[in-house]
């Protein structure tokens, strides 16, 4: 096996191990129902994280994800109140996401400002914009939303694959294609690996940077749409601090935050591991708030250490 698949394989192994441990500890855990829930409940995080994967692979970071999700949500809700069809509203918001992302990318490259700060300003700006749109949470009531909510593919066992999960898997396929089979994807890895070298090798840095953040914007807006449909509402505080979960999902999936190394597929499992950690804690159920927070940290730690251990031990054996 090629060495570069190792972190991904280790992530999958750890996910399965954690899932089995949960199954051994709690009744009703080891079921397709729980698996389907993890897929659906984390769908928007994973979609956002897929966008973040591109940004991180390019050596950048996008902190505006959570606010974008909130902003898309409130706009969808307000547009619904104004009588728009949710799909039309979604299309508009996705265009907005792409445009906003592209603008961030342009500012980052043209003004040579660090992405952390530009997107942090984006975090403030979009959250502030949410409050401008509405302070209340607004329901989205439309037949399409009910249709979206009830559409599902049954899995063997009690579980179902909900529409959110389906959208998420489709985005994943799209993202894998973009990252690994297009020139743009290769350029993203290149500027993340070494921007100066990439520039000298003839990669168009500005176009790639703008493209990367536009892709990020697309996926976070899509995540916002999924979130809005999933909760059938818009809430100005929705998605707060979600950017951290998304970044954590990317990194847990084996992508290096310094850019240039990683895989989109890993992000799926990174996101599922975060969901699994929460689900395990909820199934346990007898922890108080303090221990809930502590144990999510401890589980995160355990996962990272296990992952490292797996990767390094395979690495040693692999080359001998």
């Amino acid at each position, binding site marked *: 096996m090629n060495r570069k698949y190792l972190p991904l394989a280790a992530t999958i192994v750890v996910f399965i191990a954690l899932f089995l441990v949960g199954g051994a500890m709690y009744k009703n855990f080891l079921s397709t129902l729980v698996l389907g829930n993890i897929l659906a409940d984390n769908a928007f995080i994973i979609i956002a994280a897929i966008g973040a994967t591109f940004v991180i692979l390019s050596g950048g970071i996008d902190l505006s994800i959570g606010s974008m999700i909130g902003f898309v949500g409130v706009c969808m809700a307000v547009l619904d109140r104004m009588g728009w069809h949710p799909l039309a509203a979604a299309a508009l918001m996705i265009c907005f996401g792409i445009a906003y992302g592209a603008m961030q990318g342009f500012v980052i490259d043209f003004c040579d400002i660090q992405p952390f700060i530009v997107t942090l300003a984006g975090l403030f700006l979009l959250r502030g914009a949410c409050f401008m749109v509405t302070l209340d949470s607004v*329901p989205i009531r439309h037949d399409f939303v009910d249709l979206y909510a009830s559409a599902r593919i049954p899995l063997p066992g009690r579980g179902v694959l909900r529409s959110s999960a389906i959208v998420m898997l489709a985005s994943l396929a799209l993202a894998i294609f973009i990252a690994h089979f297009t020139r743009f994807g290769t350029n993203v890895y290149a500027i993340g690996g070494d921007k100066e070298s990439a520039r000298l090798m003839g990669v168009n840095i500005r176009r790639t940077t703008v493209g990367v953040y536009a892709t990020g914007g697309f996926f976070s807006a899509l995540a916002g749409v999924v979130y809005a449909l999933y*909760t*059938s509402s818009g*809430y100005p505080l929705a998605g707060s601090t979600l950017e951290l979960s998304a970044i954590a999902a990317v990194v847990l999936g084996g992508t290096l935050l310094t850019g240039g190394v990683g895989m989109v597929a890993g992000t799926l499992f990174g996101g599922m591991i975060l969901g699994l950690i*929460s*689900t395990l804690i909820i*199934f346990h159920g*007898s922890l108080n*708030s303090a221990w*809930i927070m502590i144990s999510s940290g401890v589980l995160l730690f355990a996962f990272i250490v296990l992952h490292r251990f797996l990767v390094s031990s395979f690495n040693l054996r692999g080359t001998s």
Partner: protein
Amino acid sequence: QTIGFSQVGSEGDWRPAFSANMQESAKDYGVDLKFANAQGKQEEQLRAVRAFIAQGVDAIIIAPVVVTGWDQVLREARDAEIPVFLVDRDVDVEDKSLYVTRISADFNLEGKLAGAWLAAESKGDCKIVELQGTTGSAPAIERKKGFEAVIGQFPAMEIVATQSGDFTTEGGKKVMEAFIKSTDNLDGICASFAHNDNMQLGAIQAMKEAGLNPGKDVQMVSVDYVPAIKDALDDGEANASVELRSAVGEFIYPVVLDYIKNPAELDKWIVIPSDLHTAD
């Protein structure tokens, strides 16, 4: 009985007390409580409710983070034949039969109580500074609405400055410090209304440090009635606090357990009374 309880978070003094009360009094009622803390995120809450359904609990109690977005998951609970009870905040669903009942205090009423007390105290003539809760959060919105509904009746009552103190002592203190400067030492201000006690406690500190007399120069009214505000009331530094009970296990569990034993139609809102406490 196994009951799943999805809590909003653990911010401030009030909510941890609420959570602790729920977990402790569960023992008295012989309930196996599955406690989940959403840390202020609706997605965590939806996850928790789904996990409760997957676990097959006997009933689910939700203290919602937001009012909207519940139709879908409540339908899933109904399909799994698990009754859902709301505590604390309300939900906005089309089909009210999706939950059994809401057992809680009334945020709007809390705001109104505070407003009414202040109107009586100031004889309907008062310039007020307001310390809001987290922007966009349900209690902040409701308490503001309730309060404004009452003072709207009195032409001479007016909110002259309002800012968010994020429900924290620190935030309340910072905001009050700024108010003190922007209103020239609270010149002409007759009252401070805070959406929770923690912010009011911060405000009291800020006023004392600026050489003002909270509770005397300015009427201090807030919501929650946590232990620390009791001391302030005793010292005369605060004037009134609307109690939001944290020991609500005794109100909630009997209703839930009764319902599990014999499911009967209940009122959609069982109101836990909010009392107004003053210095005396």
